[in-house]
């Protein structure tokens, strides 16, 4: 019995909690991708770097507050920086739309042109971030490190295995839940939100109904800015902030959005967790869990790590391919194939 508890604790500590936190980050990222896809109808390659930009501004403001001596006690000061990150990101995205994307929208350009353009935007944003904050690792988390540390957990429960719950993980999860609830309330209950869904569903009919496309697009970018900046800041807080990391996040984020069904917000969230759980589970050495569950003689000799962490994005990719092969519109019905 104790063995099973220990196994569960190990699994929670190394797989469940990290995967939930990572899944929340992916879900927020994928929501941004999927909203842009639904409303603006292209896959935005610049999304990873939009997240990096939002995280960067958040970090700069966090440092500013820290230097002023303003902190949030046991919570990280970065939470105060996030709103500023969102505002700056929204300004950046709206400016980008005005200067770059709007032209192609008016032209009714092929989506693939917009994808290429977004790659250009990606590198400009990437350059901007490196230019401002440099290419190195930046630390900006403060406050209490753990909600519950492994040691506290062990003394509390008397179990052999410890369970650590980092503050950043807790904040990630709570923030993601709040953000998602607000987003869904907005999309399903407000006039503007419904008009966004209508626009995504049937652009021509939305125009016939008098829905203003410019306003829909503007609101979309602002929401995307909120999601991206928050996701970026949370990821940076939970793991570390490095400008090029966000480039690597692009693949899992796209995989999440596609697996869930591009253009479908619920799908994006589900996809985020599917990808996160698979990635963490497949690259985690399960031996520590199995040794509690199996009789001694059957105990595995290897680490039972299915795939080395070097290949973690191979997991997103494989899931993506499987979905594309068998269900190209995603688990939840996305827009078109």
């Amino acid at each position, binding site marked *: 019995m104790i063995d099973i508890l220990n196994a569960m604790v190990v699994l929670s500590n190394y797989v469940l909690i990290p995967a939930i936190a990572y899944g929340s980050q992916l879900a927020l990222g994928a929501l941004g991708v999927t909203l842009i896809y639904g409303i603006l109808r292209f896959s935005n390659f610049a999304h990873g770097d939009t997240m990096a930009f939002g995280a960067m501004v958040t970090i700069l403001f966090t440092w500013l507050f820290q230097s002023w001596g303003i902190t949030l006690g046991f919570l990280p000061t970065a939470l105060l920086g996030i709103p500023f990150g969102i505002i700056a990101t929204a300004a950046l995205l709206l400016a980008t739309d005005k200067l770059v994307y709007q032209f192609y929208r008016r032209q009714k350009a092929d989506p693939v042109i917009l994808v290429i353009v977004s790659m250009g935007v990606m590198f400009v944003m990437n350059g901007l971030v490196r230019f401002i904050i440099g290419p190195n690792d930046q630390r900006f988390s403060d406050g209490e490190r753990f909600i519950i540390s492994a040691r506290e957990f062990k003394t509390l429960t008397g179990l052999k295995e410890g369970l650590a719950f980092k503050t950043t993980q807790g904040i990630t999860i709570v923030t993601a839940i709040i953000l998602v609830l607000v987003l869904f309330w907005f999309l399903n209950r407000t*006039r503007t939100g*419904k008009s966004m*869904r209508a626009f995504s*569903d*049937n652009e021509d*009919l939305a125009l*016939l*109904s008098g*829905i*203003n496309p410019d306003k829909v697009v503007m609101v979309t970018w602002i929401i995307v800015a909120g999601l991206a900046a928050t996701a970026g800041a949370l990821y940076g807080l939970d793991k570390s902030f490095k400008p090029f990391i966000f480039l690597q996040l692009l693949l899992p984020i796209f995989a999440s959005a596609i697996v869930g069904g591009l253009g479908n917000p619920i799908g994006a969230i589900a996809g985020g967790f599917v990808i996160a759980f698979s990635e963490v589970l497949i690259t985690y050495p399960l031996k520590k869990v199995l040794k509690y569950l199996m009789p001694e003689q059957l105990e595995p000799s290897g680490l039972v790590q299915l795939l080395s962490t070097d290949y973690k994005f191979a997991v997103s990719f494989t899931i993506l391919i499987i979905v594309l092969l068998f269900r190209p519109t995603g688990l939840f019905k996305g827009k078109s194939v």
Partner: protein
Amino acid sequence: MSEPFLIGEGMTGGYGTGADILHDCTVAIDAGQIAVIVGPNGAGKSTAMKAIFGMLEIHRGFVRLDGEDISALSPQDRVAKGMAFVPQTANVFTSLTVEENLEMGAFLRRDDIAVTMRQVYELFPILSEKRKQAAGELSGGQRQQVAVGRALMTKPKVLMLDEPTAGVSPIVMDELFDRIIEVAKTGISILMVEQNARQALSIADKGYVLVQGTNRFTDTGAALLADPEVRKSFLGG
């Protein structure tokens, strides 16, 4: 004769830079009446309607609503002026509920929409039952009702319907025509493009027979139905 409520007069034009589809085509409708455009395939029926609604450029002729020249207005602006258009296909938001579809129809309105919505539900009781259901899950006939309902939510003065009965069963078709007559009785002018010429003309105050983008016959619905030449060429005897 007094000026009709809505008139597209001498319209000549086509899509984009392509060849002209309409040639000096005139379609008019009086307040509270039903006008029907019929004609063979490719006669430019839908095109004429879209031209009146501003969805394609006409380089000759003009469109007047209640005496005002609206030729230069965009479709959205024409919606604000009191015109509503129901496209032939993709005319509902499939992922939105019936009620949300109606709400979107009233997007431009700032006043209370509850009364209009109640009227739409009275007109189409089935929609009231399915108000929380996604429009994409409804049957073809019900979808058409949602589409007409959405258009009515703008409180239009003119309702334009592009083949509202395409692809629905004959029974549903009859019912739809009945509803359209009811709508007209409330004082809304109706302009309709129809494949089922005989049935459409039978409810029409005015009928337009278009051939190759020009007016061939124009008369009251009843007169056209009685005209032997129209019958022979367009109504199958």
